[in-house]
């Protein structure tokens, strides 16, 4: 305790003075911690806001659903309602059948305006719900005559925000596209809901109306269960009793589960995506930690004589160690508090971007208000605090070891960090990373996998490369010096060749950022290249048709079967490749079951085949299937075999006869013949169709004609489809790019800070050189070259580790997380451009730092 009080006293009496003198550096340091914590917290909040909203109607309207009754395929035949027996009228709960699908509102010109979620529910049944009136769900005048809703076939109810956004008033007609057909409904009521949980994109209609609009007669999405006594929601025993009473009478293919599990399911589906973002967001704070280490080390060096004096006066080394740790803690705490605010700002700016990505990749969602929870604050503070403390540990130990006599007599003593000069630590880390690759992937809840070994290896390699980068810098500087003739360049090279701790730390911080950025370069480029190649092979048809306005991968709404059968009668069509899609449940998680023309897919339809049709022998008694690479890897079917999938009509076994590359989803797809798919899913609704036209047909002419005939469908030629797909692809990497950018900004801020410290430390050298006739311009140039040298060193080391990371991302992390292999592409031009920018930025940082030093030391 006494130690702590003494340390605090020294901190107040001496350290604060140093902070005042170096106010700019310390502010920058605080900014670095704040940005690091902010990036982590921002991503956490933004992904929660972007993927939390999954629109259980009841959550929006009358509070909370307690249980969900669902089938494995997430669709139910309404027939099941009659098989619920005594469950249907039990007074202890309310069963709320729901159908959910996507529609697209149209503007005045008939152009798609916004994708909306249509939720159909039994409006009569709402009157029974215990919380309806308490949820401030205001039906206005309608509330007194709710029984008039009976037979309200052409009415929809929309939320106030949606109405304002789309410019609708009560009683007005709203035009939209559903299931490939243009529809028109009347806005019966704009629902005034004070609760912020009412999703922006929700449109409510009576259940049979919604079934009709979505062309899904006799179909439900789920049955929500709401207990009659909401006051018992927290009573676990009561809920368990209710659940078991429901489960007792449920038909075999239905399951009841607490609603929270659905949230967990959704969270699990996006787990890999969110995890990748979180890991990326840690880069900023990792780089930040390097910089804090560097800055605190510089502070120790500057205060060495003061430390020596304190030791001579009898202050114990332990107190000094504590003082420097306390300084780190203060910086970490203040930076983290600011970081929490910065995180909120980041989340606010990036939530829509993440929501778009989740929409494109996983399921329909809208953003909820960004919420800052206590846990966010605690996480942010702990993260910032622990990283800063960790970074402050070494300089504090360094300060503790100061020999007072030596420092006071010679005026200097700077041992630097011996571990930075030690090649072995870096080398061991590189080897350890390679060994960690042998770790198997960790299974996630929804059936996804987390490439633990890959991520740990990436961490080890980055740290190892950062540690070794100092050696590369020294060697590089030695090499360049031998080619240098001018005093300025020789001076710069010599200083770099000396390889001080600060130079090594500066380059190491940059290497972390450069390595990650170049690694991501390769992954994005490889992904794009692979997808383009996939497109070239896979998409050979002339026209592609899907439901209009629906672009998300998770939306499997489909086209009205009658529209489809009418469309394929067009005389210009030589062949129509119709695809059907539904969800199915493997033993764990969820996957996609597709219905295709097996004969055509096995012969004429081109695919990127990993194993062409016929190369695998189907297991007897199983349905032959063409499976995607993701599916094969996920269920261990690369060499054949079989797997049972739970469908609407029960468990069905599929066995691969071929494996194709597919980058459409990360859950895997098994394609069976259309007739089998229809039998298993009891559905007739196709998802899209590729049209092969008769030879000599005017492709765009046919496209325009079909667009006019079927305004509810998106008709695109191959080039247009490619454009849309690449847009989705770019969308998915937006968040990644933003995080890369943040990492780089932090790294450059660190470089500037590092160079400031380096020049500050070299004051005597510069002053001597000035006396010897070194001009200011020569000094500035030399400083710039020193900065450029660090940039170059960081680029070379960073690119080397970046190449390794690129390989790791493509061949380990992507394969294990998503189950697909990409063609590795190294974007040389991007590498070179990035390197040049890095050298220029280094040069400018050196120039800037030297100008500042020069101004200060006139």
């Amino acid at each position, binding site marked *: 305790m006494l130690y702590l009080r003494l340390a605090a006293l020294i901190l107040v009496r001496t350290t604060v003075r140093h902070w005042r003198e170096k106010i700019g550096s310390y502010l920058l340091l605080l900014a670095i911690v704040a940005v690091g914590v902010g990036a982590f917290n921002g991503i956490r909040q933004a992904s929660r806001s972007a993927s939390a909203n999954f629109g259980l109607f009841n959550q929006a309207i009358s509070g909370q659903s307690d249980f969900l009754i669902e089938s494995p395929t997430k669709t139910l035949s309404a027939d099941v309602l009659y098989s619920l027996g005594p469950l249907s009228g*039990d007074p202890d709960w309310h069963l709320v059948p729901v159908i959910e699908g996507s529609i697209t509102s149209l503007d005045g010109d008939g152009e798609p305006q916004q994708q909306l979620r249509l939720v159909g529910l*039994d409006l009569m049944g709402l009157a029974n719900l215990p919380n309806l*009136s308490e949820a401030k769900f205001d039906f206005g005048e309608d509330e007194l005559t709710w029984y008039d809703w*009976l037979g309200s*076939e052409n009415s929809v109810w929309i939320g106030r925000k949606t109405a304002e956004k789309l410019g609708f008033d009560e009683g007005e007609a709203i035009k939209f596209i559903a299931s490939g057909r243009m529809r028109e409904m009347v806005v019966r009521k704009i629902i005034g809901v004070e609760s912020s949980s009412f999703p922006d994109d929700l449109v409510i209609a009576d*259940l049979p109306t919604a079934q009709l609009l979505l062309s899904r007669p006799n179909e439900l999405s789920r049955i929500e269960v709401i207990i009659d006594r909401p006051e018992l929601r927290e009573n676990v025993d009561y809920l368990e009793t209710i659940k078991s009473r429901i489960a007792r009478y449920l038909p075999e293919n239905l399951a009841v589960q607490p609603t929270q599990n659905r949230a967990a399911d959704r969270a699990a589906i996006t787990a890999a995506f969110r995890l990748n973002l979180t890991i990326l967001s840690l880069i900023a704070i990792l780089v930040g930690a390097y910089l804090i280490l560097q800055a605190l080390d510089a502070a120790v060096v500057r205060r060495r004589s003061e430390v020596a004096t304190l030791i001579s006066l009898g202050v114990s080394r332990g107190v000094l160690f504590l003082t420097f740790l306390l300084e780190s803690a203060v910086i970490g705490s203040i930076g983290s508090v600011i970081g929490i605010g910065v995180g909120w700002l980041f989340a606010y700016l990036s939530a829509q971007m993440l929501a778009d990505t989740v929409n494109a990749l996983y399921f329909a969602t809208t953003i909820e208000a960004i919420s800052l929870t206590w846990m966010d604050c605690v996480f942010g503070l702990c993260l910032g605090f622990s990283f800063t403390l960790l970074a402050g540990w070494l300089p504090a130990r360094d300060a503790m070891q100061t020999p007072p006599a030596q420092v006071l007599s010679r005026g200097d003593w700077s041992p630097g960090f011996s571990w930075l000069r030690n090649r072995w630590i870096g080398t061991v880390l590189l080897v350890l990373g390679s060994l960690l690759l042998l770790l198997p992937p960790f299974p996630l809840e929804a059936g996804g996998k987390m490439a633990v070994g890959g991520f740990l290896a990436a961490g080890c390699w980055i740290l190892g490369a950062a540690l070794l980068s100092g050696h590369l810098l020294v060697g590089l500087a030695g090499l360049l010096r031998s080619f240098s003739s001018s005093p300025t360049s020789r001076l710069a090279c010599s200083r770099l060749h000396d390889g001080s701790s600060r130079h090594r730390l500066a380059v190491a911080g940059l290497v972390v950022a450069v390595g990650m950025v170049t690694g991501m370069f390769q992954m994005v480029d490889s992904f794009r290249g692979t997808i383009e190649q996939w497109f070239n092979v896979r998409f050979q048809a002339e026209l592609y048709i899907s439901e209009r306005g629906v672009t998300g991968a998770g939306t499997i709404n489909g086209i009205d079967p009658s529209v489809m059968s009418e469309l394929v009668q067009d005389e210009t069509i030589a062949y129509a490749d119709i695809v059907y899609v539904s969800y199915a449940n493997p033993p764990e998680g969820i996957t996609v079951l597709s219905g295709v023309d097996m004969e055509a897919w096995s012969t004429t339809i081109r695919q990127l085949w990993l194993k062409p049709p016929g190369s695998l022998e189907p297991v007897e008694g199983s349905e032959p299937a063409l499976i995607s690479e993701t599916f094969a890897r996920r269920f261990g079917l690369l060499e054949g075999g079989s797997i049972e999938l739970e469908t609407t009509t029960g468990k069905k076994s599929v066995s691969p006869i071929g494996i194709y590359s597919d980058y459409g989803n990360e859950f895997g797809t098994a394609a069976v013949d259309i007739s089998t798919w229809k039998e298993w899913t009891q559905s007739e609704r196709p998802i899209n169709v590729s049209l092969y036209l008769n030879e000599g047909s005017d492709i765009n002419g046919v496209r325009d004609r079909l667009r006019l005939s079927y305004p509810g469908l998106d008709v695109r030629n191959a080039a247009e489809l490619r454009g849309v797909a690449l847009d989705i692809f770019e969308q998915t990497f937006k968040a990644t790019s933003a995080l890369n950018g943040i990492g780089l900004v932090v790294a450059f801020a660190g470089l500037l800070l590092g160079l400031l410290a380096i020049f500050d430390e070299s004051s005597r050298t510069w002053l001597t050189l000035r006396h010897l006739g070194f001009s200011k311009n020569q000094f500035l140039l030399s400083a710039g070259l020193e900065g450029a040298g660090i940039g170059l060193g960081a680029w070379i080391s960073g690119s080397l580790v970046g190449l390794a990371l690129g390989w790791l991302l493509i061949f380990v992390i992507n394969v294990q997380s998503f189950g697909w292999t990409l063609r590795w592409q190294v974007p040389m031009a991007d590498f070179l451009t990035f390197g040049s920018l890095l050298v220029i930025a280094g040069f400018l940082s050196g120039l800037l730092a030297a100008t500042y030093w020069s101004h200060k030391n006139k």
Partner: protein
Amino acid sequence: MNVSILILLSCPLLAFAEWIETPAQSSKGHLVPAPDYAPNFPRDHGSHPEYGIEWWYWVGHLQSADEQKTFGFQFTVFRIAGDAEKAENQFDGFFGNQNLFLVHSALSDLESGEYLHLERVYREGWQARASSQTLNLSVGGIQAHLLSGEEGQRVVARYKEANRLELSFRPTKPLVPFGDRGLSRKGADPAAVSWYWSYTRLQAEGILIRDGVEIPVKGTAWMDHEISSSQLGGGLEGWDWTCMQLDDGTEIKAYRLRTGAGESDPWSAVYWIDGEGGTERVYADGFSWEAEDSWTSPNTGLEYPTSVKVTAEHPVRGKQIFRLRPLLDGQEFTGNRSDNAYWEGACEVLNERGDRIGKAYLELAGYGGGLGARLN
């Protein structure tokens, strides 16, 4: 509130001697019950979807087999037809758009003083079905059908907390039709008529599952089934209604419709049902209904005149006095919304001297105010 409309629509109605010609259809396009109709059972125990309003109603008193416990119960299923013009979607069997069903079920535990009650509303479909061929109702927590091989009915009603009452009813008297030429009059409007049939004395037997314990019970019950297509006029505040089952084997049905001025509407009446099912009646000018005591609900704050003195002039036996005393005060049915509350409960019947002469069920509706406005 809305339920009150239906309750009012379905309350026991008047039948004046003066004859009127009924129209074929109501203003909403539903069929109007025709005079001289000869009911065809069991078909007419079932639903009549061509008519606008219909309800099935059971009340009674039960005693446990060990005679330690006594209960009162009420089950009511209402059907109201929607606007036939509005509905376009084809009824797919799951979510109908033509008929709305309501269920009210209540259980009075006269020993413990507990009163369980439940209101639910459903559209015709998977949760609410009524056969038009026979008595076969499945509406939320109530299932009712005819007994097989014998005259009578079986009703199962579920209450909250997994409580359940399963009863078989066997009539000891023939079905009683009310009104002239088979039509019960509701008001001056010629379309305001109904077919109104009652089993005024049923033997009830079955089990009550109460807090997980199965209790064999038996007792007596009353059942109404009414079919009509039109609504009552305005100016009404509510109504008081009772069915009495006297120990001498006769029954009495009495009701008064309360006007805004606090008087009885002329359509108010008292019916006597003799041992063979024959009926006598007097109208508003032949009886009086006086409140002797009241109970104020702690839930809604409404005051109900639950102790009643009915003084009526029997056409043959002359003046008779019946006093109704509630067997439990707290038998207020609040439903899902408290502004829709009414009192309906088990009572005993006393004579002028205060001797107990039978059992009754008493219904007191419209004491929350505003009911008349909603009817107009």
